């Protein structure tokens, strides 16, 4: 089976879009980084506006009630428009969110449940939109209803063809609109369950964007609803062949194609799309070796401090009883839940946990092998810059061109504070860690925990003996090269103003840690 190892096109397109959005809004307010949480905000808007609409909606006269709502310029018109635009934007946000997960290879392994439940939520959103538009019962609603009936009539489900409802022989019965309303109201209840499933693997799911962004979104959509109220088509008339209808592209883009195909072909296509979607976790799965291997615990070093389970964003680590005679618990990693972000490695003071090759000790070895020699041959002090492997290559190249010693870690949260200490005590004027924008961190909480460890004494904290002015955490966002370089220049300027660092002699941070652990083990 061909595996989609590198969805490069999706990745490049997303990076371009991210870059544009970063230039427009800055990485803090880039809505593309928040597509999942933006979808939740829109869902809340839909619930609020939907509650109003359902109160004024009449099953017996659907179009008339919608027309009456539309005539109420003070409330009804913009509420209905806001409901529609929020539903459109919900679909778009959900698609972007899925696209991001696919492009960033976050659609397999422990994330499979989130991928599948996310797809189900998107599909439910499309069905929800379908029923909502039918409820309006304008020409577009009629078109959707007719297409739905045509498709269902191909299945041996109903003794009387559904399409006869719209033949014009009798008025469309209220029961039809009742069923639509029932589904339209019932599905959002399922959304709650779907959302819970979607984030159930996360330790601290973020459900909403920053408050400012949330309110800005609501305000922007409200203004749009007032300025450009959503069009209401002509009333549905089964005995009239409308020349054209206004169709809603975000929710009903499939309609023109569906109408051209035989019902069984449509069902076949839908099934193919569903199967393809479900296969994505299989097709994008990667062999879990090297940097993708699950974290492992060195039980000899584990002190049972319970920090790594607290820091793990994926609830992949639990504390269990030891098999030896030491009185502490020991961390255990569930490989099926671990995404190899390496955040646990940065949380462990004795450096006893992390993905193979990326725990604290491995990072120190790598530093000594590759970074330290480069640092020593340099006649001028060179700042050490750590970047996430997801960081844009152009930014890394630009930093190198400015004389920085650029190194990579799987996630900023993977970087152990002892490496920062080692670099500074080895003579580096400063260590600048470029993390991804917090809402775009593949490890979810890398920038957050890194900042806490370096500056707020969270385990494994940067030791007090290290001058904090020589360490800094920046953000590297696609399309914001000037921001990256400005951050580096500022940092380089600041550390240059400090007195030069003299390399410490006989520096062995690991031995210090091991000594403590061994002492504990010997008790």
């Amino acid at each position, binding site marked *: 089976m061909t595996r989609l190892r590198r969805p490069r096109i999706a990745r490049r397109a997303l990076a371009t879009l991210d870059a544009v959005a970063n230039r427009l809004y800055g990485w803090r307010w880039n809505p593309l980084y928040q597509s999942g949480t933006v979808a939740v905000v829109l869902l809340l808007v839909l619930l609020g506006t939907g509650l109003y609409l359902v109160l004024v909606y009449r099953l017996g006269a659907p179009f008339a009630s919608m027309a009456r709502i539309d005539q109420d310029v003070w409330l009804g018109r913009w509420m209905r428009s806001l409901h529609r635009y929020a539903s459109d934007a919900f679909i778009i946000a959900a698609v972007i969110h899925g696209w991001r997960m696919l492009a960033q290879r976050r659609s397999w392994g422990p994330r499979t449940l989130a991928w599948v439940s996310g797809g189900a939520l998107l599909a439910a959103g499309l069905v929800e939109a379908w029923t909502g538009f039918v409820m309006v019962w304008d020409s577009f609603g009629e078109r959707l209803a007719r297409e739905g009936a045509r498709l269902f009539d191909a299945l041996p489900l109903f003794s009387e*063809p559904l399409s006869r409802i719209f033949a014009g*022989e009798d008025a469309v019965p209220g029961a039809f609109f009742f069923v639509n309303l029932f589904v339209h109201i019932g599905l959002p209840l399922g959304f709650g369950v779907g959302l819970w499933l979607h984030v159930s693997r996360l330790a601290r799911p973020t459900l909403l964007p920053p408050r400012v962004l949330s309110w800005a979104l609501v305000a922007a*959509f409200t203004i749009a609803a007032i300025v450009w109220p959503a069009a209401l088509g002509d009333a549905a008339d089964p*005995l*009239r*062949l409308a*020349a054209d209808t*206004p169709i*809603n592209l975000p929710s009903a883009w499939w*309609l023109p194609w569906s109408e051209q195909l035989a019902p069984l072909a449509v069902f076949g296509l839908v099934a193919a799309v569903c199967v393809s979607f479900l296969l994505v976790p299989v097709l994008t799965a990667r062999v879990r070796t090297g940097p993708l291997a699950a974290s492992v615990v060195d039980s000899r070093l584990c002190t049972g401090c319970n920090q790594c389970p607290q820091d793990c964003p994926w609830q992949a680590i639990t504390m269990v009883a030891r098999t030896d005679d030491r009185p502490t618990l020991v961390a255990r990693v569930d490989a099926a839940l671990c995404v190899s972000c390496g955040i646990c490695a940065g949380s462990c003071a004795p450096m006893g946990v992390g993905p193979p090759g990326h725990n604290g000790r491995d990072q120190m070895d790598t530093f000594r092998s590759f970074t330290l020699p480069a640092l020593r041959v340099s006649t001028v002090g060179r700042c050490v810059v750590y970047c996430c492997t997801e960081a844009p290559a152009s930014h890394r190249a630009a930093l190198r061109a400015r004389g920085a010693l650029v190194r990579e870690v799987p996630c900023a949260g993977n970087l152990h504070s002892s490496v920062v200490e080692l670099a500074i005590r080895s003579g580096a004027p400063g260590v600048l860690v470029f993390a991804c924008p917090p809402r775009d961190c593949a490890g979810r909480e890398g920038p957050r925990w890194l900042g806490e460890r370096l500056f707020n004494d969270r385990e494994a904290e940067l030791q007090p003996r290290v001058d904090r002015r020589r360490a800094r955490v920046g953000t590297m966002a696609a399309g914001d090269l000037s921001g990256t370089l400005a951050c580096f220049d500022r940092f380089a300027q600041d550390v240059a103003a400090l007195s030069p660092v003299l390399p410490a002699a006989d520096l062995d941070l690991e031995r210090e840690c091991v000594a403590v652990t061994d002492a504990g083990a010997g008790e």
Partner: protein
Amino acid sequence: MIAGRRMIRVAVAVLATAAGLALLAAASAVSLPWHGEDAAAIRLSWSARPERIEVCRALSNAEVEALNEHMRQRVQCDGRAATYALRVRVNGVLLGDEVVRGGGLRHDRPLHLLQTYAVSPGVRRVQLEFSRRERTGGDAGTGASAAAAEADTGIFAGRAARETSERGRRTRAAVPPLMTLDTALAFAPQQVILVTFDPDGRRLVVRTGAAPRRAP
């Protein structure tokens, strides 16, 4: 200078947001052709019970005695639902020629017809024929007279009359063996003219206006 640049950035962001929202609003109602300006159609739509074609015979006393008491009927009928041929001509051109069967696996449930034929706007001569394909008689089969001939006494008291009455009701409820329509209809652009079955008049009727509200 920096403040001015920031103002420009904010303005560009606001403009981009407005453009995005305008695009969303535009995408929310894109006009898409459906039937075209010069479309018109004739739609046939009705539901009715197909006739039941039966062969009935009166059971002998011995045959009746052999049945469980609650299953005894003087007249026993075997049969099947009728099938119908639908032919539609507009200005003499055959638009539809098909067989219509009742619903269900045995085709003995009500038949539901829904056909829409595109026609050009203007006055058109519409000829429609809906005829039973089977040549034999319908519900009032041969057994009816035989049943009437049987003694209507004992546990069968009034039974034969009731069975005859029931058969008559079923016959009246079923679609007639032949229904035709031959008329000139004026099709306006975008108009659908509906031909349906009037169960009270037991004939095809043409409807051009809005559908009446169905009684609750």
